[in-house]
Each structure stands twice: as C-alpha cells, then as structure tokens.
C-alpha cells in the first residue's frame, strides 16, 4: 500500500496546492481521482509516484519513502501522464523491447490482448504514425502489461472514442490482479464510475476527500424528490431535486459521482 501522511506541497511558498493530506492507497482497489481544473490532481499523482517530493509530510510505498526512488519501489509503480511524447520513428516492438525489461512482471500476453482489444495489431508500426487516441491506447496497454503493483493514470481516456472507453473498462476488469491498485485521474466521471471502488476528491483548497463507494452508499442515500428538505445536498432537475440525504435505514443506493463530487466540492459532504 501507499501511505500519505500529512503531505503538503507548493510550487510557490504560501500557495499550497496540496494541503496536509493523509490517505492510504490500499491493495486491490481502484481509485477515482477527481477535482476541478487546477485543483492539484496531477500534483498529487506526481507526489504518490515520487516525481515530486512533499514539502511537508511523508509518502511511503510498501514502507519505503518514495523520495529515495529505490529500484524496488520504482518497479512497483507505473505512471501514465496526461501528455507524453513518443519517439516518432520508433516502432511499437522496439519501444516495448527497450522499456519492458525493467519490469519483472511484464506480460507480453496481456500486452497483446490489450493491443488487440484496442485494434492496434501491427507491432512494426512507427509510433509517430499513431493518432493521439491510438497513442493513448498503446500506452494504456503497455502500462497494464507491466504488472506493477500500483498504476497511476492521468486523464487516460483523452482523445479516445466511446468503444475504446468501454474496452478500457473491460481490460481493467480482465487484467488487473487482486494485489494491484489503480488510481485514475479524470474529468469525465461517467467513464470510471462503474469500476472505481474508492473516491479521491481534491478540493480547491488542496485538502482531500477519500472514502470507498461502499461506505458512501451506506452513509448516504440518493434519489429524486420534489423537495430538498432534509437533504445534505440537492440540485435542481426537471423532476424537482436530485438529493443526497443521510441514510436513515434505507437500502443502500448507488450515488452518482457527479452529485457526490459537487457535494464534496461545495462542502456539503466533509
């Protein structure tokens, strides 16, 4: 697991992007990381992977400080940034052969299955000839095939069409082992709402909301009502109000991500 203890980060002193965050990334979970533009999602991902060092606090990956960038720690982490460059003249085959050797659990079978599902069937294609969406698909396939314990994806579905988004969810369900964890940062919550087991929301002040969807369903109930009385959070809709209430003995209900996100961002859910 990855443990964040009282982590604070700033790019300029006095302007905290991440403020006193404590959380645990547990094994076998899929985390949805949400936040408004500029809230610090990418910064948080970089902190968890060891690309940034906390100004205050500590981040431990399997008990090792990520700041040390030990080989074992790095072999447990795969990170797909929102924007990345691939050498245009290099082939898929060459890229994989050069990069995969560092990951002991790399699986060519998983890679081939993922590439097949994404419709990328020519390993000798130059990376420069792939479209933006195809580059993202290739990188996703490669990251999934590395077999690392922690996978961090920053806006992985950028530039991808709808069928590929569905394929992405299926591939995660098929290939993510029980001991692996994934953190997916995205603006499009509907893309990941069906697969996440936990929600991380970076508020605008840099603090973090973190809870599992099971806990949230037990604690809150969601429904459409003609009144907003007694609601923890409510939004107007054509039928009246979409309301989030404390669960007073009702059966557990699935809470839409967008309602939860708005409720957290506006301070209705702490």
């Amino acid at each position, binding site marked *: 697991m990855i443990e964040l203890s009282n982590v604070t980060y700033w*790019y300029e002193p006095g302007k905290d*992007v991440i403020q006193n965050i404590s959380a645990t990334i547990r094994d076998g979970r899929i985390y949805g990381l949400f*936040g408004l*533009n*500029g*809230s*610090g*999602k*990418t*910064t948080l991902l*970089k902190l968890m*992977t*060891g*690309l*940034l*060092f906390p100004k205050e606090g500590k981040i431990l990956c399997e008990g090792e400080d990520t700041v040390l*960038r*030990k*080989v*074992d720690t*790095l*072999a447990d*982490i*795969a*990170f797909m*940034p*929102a*924007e*990345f*460059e691939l*050498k245009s*003249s*290099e082939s898929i085959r*060459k*890229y994989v052969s*050069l*990069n995969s*050797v*560092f*990951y002991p659990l790399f699986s060519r079978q998983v890679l081939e299955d993922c590439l097949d599902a994404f419709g990328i069937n020519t390993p000798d294609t130059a990376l420069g000839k792939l479209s933006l969406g195809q580059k993202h698909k290739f990188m996703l396939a490669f990251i999934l095939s590395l077999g690392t314990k922690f996978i961090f994806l920053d806006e992985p579905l950028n530039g991808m069409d709808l069928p590929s988004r569905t394929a992405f969810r299926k591939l995660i369900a098929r290939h993510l082992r029980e001991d692996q964890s994934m953190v997916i940062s995205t603006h499009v919550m509907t893309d990941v709402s069906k697969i996440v087991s936990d929600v991380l929301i970076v508020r605008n002040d840099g603090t973090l909301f973190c809870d599992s969807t099971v806990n949230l369903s037990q604690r809150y109930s969601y429904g459409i009502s003609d009144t907003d009385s007694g609601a923890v959070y409510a939004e107007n809709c054509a039928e009246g109000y979409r309301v989030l209430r404390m669960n007073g003995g009702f059966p557990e209900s699935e809470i839409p991500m967008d309602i939860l996100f708005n409720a957290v961002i506006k301070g209705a859910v702490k």
Partner: protein
Amino acid sequence: MNSFSLRRTLLFSRLQAGEIFGGGIWKKLKVILVISVFIVLFSTLLNAGDISGSAGYAQTMILVMAIIPVTAILSDLISVRLLTPASTLEKYISVYIVALSAGAAASVALALSCSTMLSLISLFSEPPAEWPVLLFIGGNFNIAYILFFGLIPLIVYGELIRVRERARGRLLLWMTIIVPAISFIVIIILGAADMLDKHEMSVAAGGIYLILVITSTIMAYRLLRKVELDRKDND
C-alpha cells in the same frame, strides 16, 4: 534488488541511446553532413582558406559538437525516465556511458566527413596543403583533445543546477561559473607577473581542471538524486 547492477546500467544505457539516437541511418547521415559543411565552412573562413590552420579549428569544433548531446541525454533522463526502475546511480553512470559512446561515434563520423571535405578543398588551395587532410591522425592529433570529454561532467552539473535551483535563485549557478573562471584568471595573472612559468601554469590549470571535473561529477550525482519534475502542468 541491489542499488547497483551493471546489467541494469547497460540496459538503461541501451534504452536511452535507442530512444534518443535510434532510428533512421539516412537522417543521421544528413545531420552529420550538414554539421560537417558548417564546421568546414566556418574553419576555412576563419583561416582565410589556409587548410592546415583550418584543420585545428575543425578538430576543436568537432569535439564541441560531440559533447553537446549530453544535454539531450540529461534532459531525456529528467523529463521521461525518473520512474524507470533503475537506481539513480545506474541512471547517472548511464548518462556518461551514452554521452561518451555518442560523442565518440559523432567524433569519428564528423572527422571522416570533414577530412574528406577538407581534402577536396585542399586540391584547389593556395599554398597547397599536405594531402590528404586527416583530422585527429598523425600531426593533427593532440592528447589535450581528450580533455574535452572532461567537460561532460561540468555540463551535466551546470544543467542540473539550472534545473534544480530554478526556484531558488541563480546564485549557485553563477558561483559555479565564476569560481573556476576566477581561478584560471588568477593563473594567467600570476603568469603575466612572472610568478609562474609556462610549465607551472599548465600544472596549476590542469590541477584546477581535475578538481573541477571530480567535484562536478560528485555534486551532479547529489543533485540528480534531488531532481523533481516540478513543472506545474495542467492539474
């Protein structure tokens, strides 16, 4: 896993070399040709067509061109490969392996190409030069040229200070430039004041150079361990 493995270091070197310099041979030949034309033109113009003098200039320029790629290697390491599972020491050693290999390969290719061009020009030069012109061979070889490769750790250190100290002001960067510059100026002044003879000046300058190379090699490694990807991207 061990914090140092020769196999992993070589695999990392192969990764960097493959992704930075890999690919089309024709493209590389074109680049070598363009740089060679530039070197030959510049060196002959500076020497008013004197081929013997041009050879010395061309050799210096080839060595400068050969060590420049180290900045690309370092930038690739910092921006793309901090998370590749290899220790910082392995990555650091790898920078030198790739820089020296690429530098040596570039030097040989440029030397061959520039020698050919200068030989062709010398057929029409006045006064006639020794033919063929062979750069870095025979009378054109100088052991001091090897010292050029000692500049690699200095460049790595300077580049890391630039990256690492961006947010903390530029004092360290300027100190790194000014202190050695002052040291060399002091030697020149002492020489001019007849307090040091030529031999002593060479020894003193060589000593300072050696200290600089060793210090920057150690300091650059320490800085690399602290490098972060602290660009503020789209959060």
